[in-house]
């Protein structure tokens, strides 16, 4: 890395003109790197977390069985088993809907985040500033607030031509979740581009590659691998956040668990088994993703 080379589109924080300041610049870049890592809520799921969750589930079931007061009531385990199809997949609602929301929000967030992230390293300063602002806005807003905004701002139906299309709540939730995902992935893209040594920009520039070619042929292909682990991490975080939309009445698993319990006369002993059951479900889904993320991270030797 030679002093005096500034990657077009990267602001002074990441590159310096002053050769005498290089050690400081290195220290700064290390610090921002650490901040970047710490700024990410890194999913650290371990196998024993699952065992503990499962133990809690069994324990709460046991306690619930002992708590049954009226002899005629169905046992909590039998009750739960009866409601499992309803909680997990019936009518495409429940846990399946959590997954559908996570897929769609991730897909939209990825596309929008990639565009926004590239906008953050645009050579045009206004574009850079706008994309940076949008990223910061959605990255630093509480997810629930974003969700409420989208729920209330979007119309419940739109008219295209003569047909009126209803926008179901879960679809609005998808949009609501895709915003913070977009912003965080935008940072992932920016961080990955910055992590490529300046020598790659310099040598490709010296070979007369245009900026677009530099980005698409030299820099981004090298970024791609580095982006996979943080991308998966964000997916797992998103999946675990999807029950947030139960508050808006989206019929995902947590919302349906409330309905199921209400249908069972709101017996208090059911609370713990039902919710810990859902926690075990989320764990079973997210744990493999978290493990796989860590494996890829080690393989590509990158930190998120």
């Amino acid at each position, binding site marked *: 890395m030679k002093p*005096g080379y500034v990657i077009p589109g990267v602001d002074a924080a990441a590159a310096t003109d002053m050769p005498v300041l290089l050690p400081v610049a290195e220290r700064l870049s290390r610090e921002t790197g650490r901040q970047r890592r710490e700024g990410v809520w890194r999913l650290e799921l371990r196998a024993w977390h699952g065992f503990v969750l499962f133990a809690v589930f069994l324990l709460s079931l046991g306690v619930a069985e002992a708590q049954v007061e009226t002899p005629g009531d169905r046992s909590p385990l039998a009750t739960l088993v009866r409601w499992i199809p309803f909680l997990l997949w019936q009518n495409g609602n429940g846990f399946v809907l959590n997954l559908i929301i996570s897929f769609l929000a991730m897909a939209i967030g990825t596309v929008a985040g990639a565009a926004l992230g590239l906008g953050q390293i645009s050579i045009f300063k206004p574009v850079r500033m706008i994309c940076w602002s949008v990223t910061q806005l959605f990255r630093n807003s509480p997810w629930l607030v974003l969700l409420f905004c989208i729920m209330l701002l979007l119309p419940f139906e739109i008219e295209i031509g003569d047909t009126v299309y209803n926008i179901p709540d879960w679809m609005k939730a998808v949009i609501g979740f895709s915003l913070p995902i977009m912003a965080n992935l935008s940072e992932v893209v920016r961080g990955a581009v910055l992590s490529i040594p300046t020598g790659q920009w310099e*040598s490709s520039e*010296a070979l*007369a*590659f245009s900026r677009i070619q530099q980005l698409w042929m030299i820099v981004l292909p090298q970024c791609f691998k580095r982006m996979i682990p943080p991308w998966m991490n964000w997916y797992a975080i998103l999946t675990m956040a999807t029950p947030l939309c139960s508050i808006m009445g989206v019929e995902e698993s947590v919302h349906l668990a409330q309905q199921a319990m209400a249908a069972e006369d709101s017996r208090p002993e059911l609370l713990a088994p039902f919710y810990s059951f859902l926690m075990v479900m989320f764990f079973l889904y997210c744990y493999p993703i978290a493990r796989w993320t860590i494996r890829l991270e080690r393989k590509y030797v990158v930190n998120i």
Partner: protein
Amino acid sequence: MPDSIKTTGWTPEQPMVALRDVHKSFGNLEVLKGITFDVMKGEVICIIGPSGSGKSTLIRCINALNTIDRGSITVEGQEVNDPELDKLELRKKVGMVFQQYNLFPHKTALQNVMMAPLHVLKEDPAEVEERARKLIRKVRLEGKEDSYPGELSGGQQQRVAIARSLAMKPDVMLFDEVTAALDPETVKEVLLTIRELAEDGMTCMLVTHEMGFARELANHIYFTDRGVIVEHGPPQSFFKEAKDPRTREFLSQIL
């Protein structure tokens, strides 16, 4: 380059690279304080000097990786210090090799050499591949075509980098301390490659610490210190009759 001859009026008898009173500052630090010299076609010039004397900055200004504040640099008559400059056209004429090789790690050696002619010059793939294989043979790396940079030694990577630059058929080659990151044994193989290049008539500008190499190969040696050319001359006289105390001190430390 018939086009550039037409537009700039440059003929091969004129200096291929001409620097006039080049000034460059990084913030308050003035790195180049009025550098003037010419490089003729087919010449090999070496720039030597203590670290921090602006050698690398100087050479990087020639293909517009760094901009200059004042003065003029022309390459084949084309002004580099011109806001309207077509940098891509300039860089097609000027090849550059870096200290850290900077090969593209996600591409094989052959792909590294082929990429720029394919995508920048938009040449015929078959023709480019033939030329790339020839160049890889020329830098003595036959059999390494399909190796990734990570599988090659520093010296081998640097020779791929030279081949990669040559694939663009440049008129001038810039070498920025290309052997500084190598261990002494592999330095030789890289220097041999550059020597052959120079003997083929390529115009070369080298920033180097290899004094023996400079003495043998250079037509002209420039010694820079604190942003100015302190002393220069053909190697015979430069090494024997250095007059300036700064040059003498530098040479006594190095030789």
